[in-house]
């Protein structure tokens, strides 16, 4: 802003408006959307048999986002028009595939149920309306739409030249969302009847778009902090805390205590994860090693804050790189062993921790789960003896042993959390590499702040609409507009935190970096609402 119009002589120059919003500046977002709508028409015209399916389109979108993110990141270190162009095109193609996937899924979902209903003697007049099939039925659909929200916001913001850097941060984040979606799996489900309302697309659509905008806001807040002088070392300390949180909770809180990572099992044919987990050799040990390296790096950085010892700092960065490598190894090993289709067996009495097998000590839990599956009440389950429970579990597991499988779909949140920790570590490493050069390549703090403020405002308004449409829908179907259900509360809390951000900017002593912390916390709360509430906390929104 400061450089504006200091020299009236420049006034007539032809590139006068290039930094502003013009019709052309909407193209990066509008073209993919228009293209995806075209795909929808094509899919309707051609039918499902010879058309690319939604799963494949989703993987293409993932590829687009990753490539886009990489090229835009490279562009920050080695600015070149070419890599920026490739990055934006890849990101745009990602958005196109992402939305196409979602739209194709809409049609496919309709086709699927139409076939079932016709087989059951429903006539044309009794067919449910088309809105029923809008892909907002479970967390997979929502993740797909969330990633689209993030992607399209990135493209919209990239319409302005000075904001084109944002994809370097937001596209990798959007890819994480799609990776989660990939792990959840794209099977169609019968829509729970309570969701069959026109409020669903309104409510969930608002959710996915505002979550996407919140993601871009988070990306700009992180870059703002970097620009405003927050050291990558401090970010590493926070990333370390995040990593420890994830590492200690996965595998049923058992990695640090037992040294073993266990993966959830599926019963073939059903998509319900059993409370029987399988030891994955070496992965637990690698995770512990990664955690130790991370803690060592964080400890060195922490002491460096007071002593300012360059050697320590450098050593810390070495540890930071080492933990990244170890984490990558752990993830590769884990996925490889999950994908390995070899049959599963019970562990031997001792020494099973480095074998791909399940511990029989879990039978008690499996037994309780079986009993509750059979409709027994809490008291009735309590009344059963441990021998009864383990006996029933053993019998069950033995009878179905051949059907037990491992799957990346069995525990999407754990896998995605591991990958998210990896991504956080990667970014801290990237930020630590030639930090000053990166800082110089980023636009001014004011510009970053203005982007953060703008996206936070829109996210705030979006979350308000989300809360209100949710309240109206709740009042239409449950008979109350507000019940402190965990998902409601989660969205409310995230909204309040964005409110905190907006007010912090005008409050004494809370401006600058401090207000940016609000934007970061708010997005973490959005993610908590989006995932934590669905997977960890019981409530009325348990389907998504």
């Amino acid at each position, binding site marked *: 802003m400061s450089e504006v119009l200091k020299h009236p002589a420049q006034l007539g120059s032809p590139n006068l408006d290039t930094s502003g919003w013009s019709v052309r500046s909407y193209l990066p977002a509008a073209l993919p959307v228009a293209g995806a709508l075209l795909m929808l028409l094509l899919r309707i015209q051609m039918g499902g048999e010879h058309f690319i399916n939604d799963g494949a389109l989703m993987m293409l979108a993932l590829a687009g986002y990753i490539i886009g993110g990489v090229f835009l990141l490279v562009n920050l270190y080695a600015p070149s028009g070419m890599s920026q162009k490739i990055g934006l095109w890849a990101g745009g193609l990602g958005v196109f595939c992402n939305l196409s996937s979602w739209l194709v899924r809409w049609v496919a979902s309709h086709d699927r149920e139409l076939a079932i209903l016709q087989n059951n003697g429903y006539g044309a007049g009794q067919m449910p309306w088309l809105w029923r099939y809008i892909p907002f039925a479970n967390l997979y659909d929502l993740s797909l739409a969330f990633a689209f929200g993030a992607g399209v916001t990135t493209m919209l913001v990239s319409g302005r030249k000075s904001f084109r850097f944002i994809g370097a941060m937001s596209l990798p984040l959007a890819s994480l969302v799609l990776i989660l979606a990939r792990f959840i799996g794209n099977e169609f489900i019968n829509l729970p*009847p309570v969701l069959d309302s026109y409020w669903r697309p309104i409510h969930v659509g608002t959710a996915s778009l505002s979550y996407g905008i919140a993601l871009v806001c988070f990306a700009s807040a992180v870059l703002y902090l970097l620009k405003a002088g927050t050291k990558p070392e401090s970010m590493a300390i926070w990333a370390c805390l995040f990593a420890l949180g994830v590492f200690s909770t996965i595998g049923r809180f058992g990695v640090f205590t037992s040294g073993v990572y266990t993966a959830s099992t599926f019963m073939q044919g059903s998509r319900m994860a059993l409370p029987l987990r399988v030891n994955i050799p070496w992965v637990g040990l690698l995770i512990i090693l990664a955690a130790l390296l991370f803690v060592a790096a964080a400890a060195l950085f922490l002491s460096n804050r007071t002593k300012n010892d360059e050697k320590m700092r450098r050593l810390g960065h070495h540890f930071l790189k080492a933990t990244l490598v170890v984490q990558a190894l752990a993830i590769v090993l884990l996925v490889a062993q999950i994908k390995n289709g070899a049959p599963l067996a019970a562990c031997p009495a001792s020494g099973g921790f480095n074998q791909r097998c399940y511990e029989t000590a879990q039978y008690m839990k499996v037994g309780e789960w079986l009993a509750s599956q059979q409709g027994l009440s809490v008291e009735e389950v309590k009344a059963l003896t441990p021998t009864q429970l383990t006996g029933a579990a053993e019998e069950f597991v033995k009878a179905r042993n051949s059907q037990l499988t491992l799957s990346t779909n069995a525990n999407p949140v754990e896998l995605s959390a591991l990958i998210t920790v990896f991504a956080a570590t990667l970014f801290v490493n990237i930020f630590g590499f030639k930090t000053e050069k990166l800082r110089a390549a980023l636009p001014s703090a004011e510009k970053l702040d203005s982007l953060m403020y703008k996206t936070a405002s829109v996210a705030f308004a979006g979350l308000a609409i989300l809360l209100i449409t949710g309240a*109206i829908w709740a009042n239409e179907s*449950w008979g109350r507009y507000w019940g402190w259900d965990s998902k409601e509360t989660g969205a409310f809390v995230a909204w309040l935190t964005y409110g905190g951000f907006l007010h912090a900017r005008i409050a004494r002593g809370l401006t600058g970096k401090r207000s940016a912390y609000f934007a970061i916390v708010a997005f973490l709360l959005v993610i908590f609402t989006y995932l934590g509430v669905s997977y960890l906390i019981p409530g009325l929104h348990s389907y998504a």
Partner: protein
Amino acid sequence: MSAIEETKTEIGVKSVAAGARPAASFVTKTLDLLSSVRFGVTLLMFVVVLSMIGMLIMQKNVEGFEKYFADMTPASRMLWGTLGFFDVYHAWYFNLLLLVLSLNIVLASIDRFPKAWTFVSKPKLDASEKWLRGQECHDALTLEADSRESATRRVTEACKSVGLKPRVTEKAGKTFVFAQRGTWNRLGAYAVHVALLTIFLGGFMTRMFDQNGQMPLRPGMKSNEMSDSVFNVGDGGLELSKATIPLPFEVECTDIQQKLIKQEGGIDAGNTIDWFTKIKIKDPQRGTTEAFVHLNNPFDYHGYRFFQASFINVGRARNVTLRLTREADGYQTDVTIPRDGTVKLSDGTRLDFVNFQPDFTMANGEAATASGEYNNPAAIINVTDAGGAQKRTFAFTRELPSGAPVGRAVGGYKFRIVGFEKVPDAHVLSIQKDPGATVFYIGSAMLIATLISVFFFSHRRVWALVEERGAGNYWVVLGGNANRNAVAFEEKFKRLVAILSGEQVGNADASEVQP
């Protein structure tokens, strides 16, 4: 950005003034605290923390609380119970927090509103050259014109063409043009707060006057009360208290129906498209009203709303089709009888459809069901022959051997089920009377409208100082700012200058787009 900068200066001025005051009284200090934005942000964070506690510790009204409570250690039960964490959103301290927050919103708004109002009541009409050059956007140029009036007119025309409304004033021999747009945007934040307070008021009214309850209904059932069950965490552990709430009318169920996806599947929610409930509301004052309630489609009746809430998952039949075989000659005919209905055959025999058991079994000599699923469906039929003699019989889906006692002909006929429409034992309607909902809806509409008006528009101002520099040359200094979306304003300002200097605008469509 300018809004923030202006506010920053405002706060700076305020704090200086506060420092200058020798000794503020306790009341003043309290009021200062209650009306400060910083305090408001702190309160917000308290609400966030308490809400997180409510999310992480299961609340007593959530399904599954019983199991959760049973699995807890006595120590944590006591600790959370004493702190009110099992019902944190209704704890006294949570209410107090919301009250103080409301007070803060009111006071902070009152504190800041007069400053915002001056943008409307006393707009800044003139500006010094130095001040203009200190603005985010500024520029200066020379215009050739016959007179100062015509030079000024060119400035006002240019302002109009970029959508700003100009006003011209003269002061100390200089001409000032002040042009602006979207002044009301300065007041938007206060409107947002009014909307929020309206929502809070609605919530408070709901809390005070809301009536809520459940009513299980199967065809033929009548009721004039609803029941409401609440868990209470008492000294003796968990207590379930049930309250009945009388209604000023009677509800009679005439029909229930469940629309399934797969006919051969069960009546679980996963195989369901919708549940239909038909009722009659018999009101001593207003007469009888017929109503149709289904999922996501409540029925409104004079302040009461009827919702399809849940169903009792025991399979029954909405109607049953029986194949009758006359014992005498083997003649077969099919009859369909609705639930609790009656059919008269041509020979005078009357069939009453008494009951339906999905998983037939005998318990204490009575027909009963072993489960809620359609494992062994049986219809219980009373057969009254032309002579008036009544006998009970059971019809099954499978052919029974003629030797079996249940397979014997009754009233001259043998019965077999050839079809039936699946329906649950009963539907549960929830009934609600909530005068707060309307207030909440009004507040919500206001909130959406005001938020959009705040964040998607801005207050844009431009000042121009016109001075004569001899021989038909006029020196124009321009400056301007916007309280939001500075980049878009910058574009507008550039375009204004370009129009004034008479040059072609490179990208004409640029400034038409309002992000």
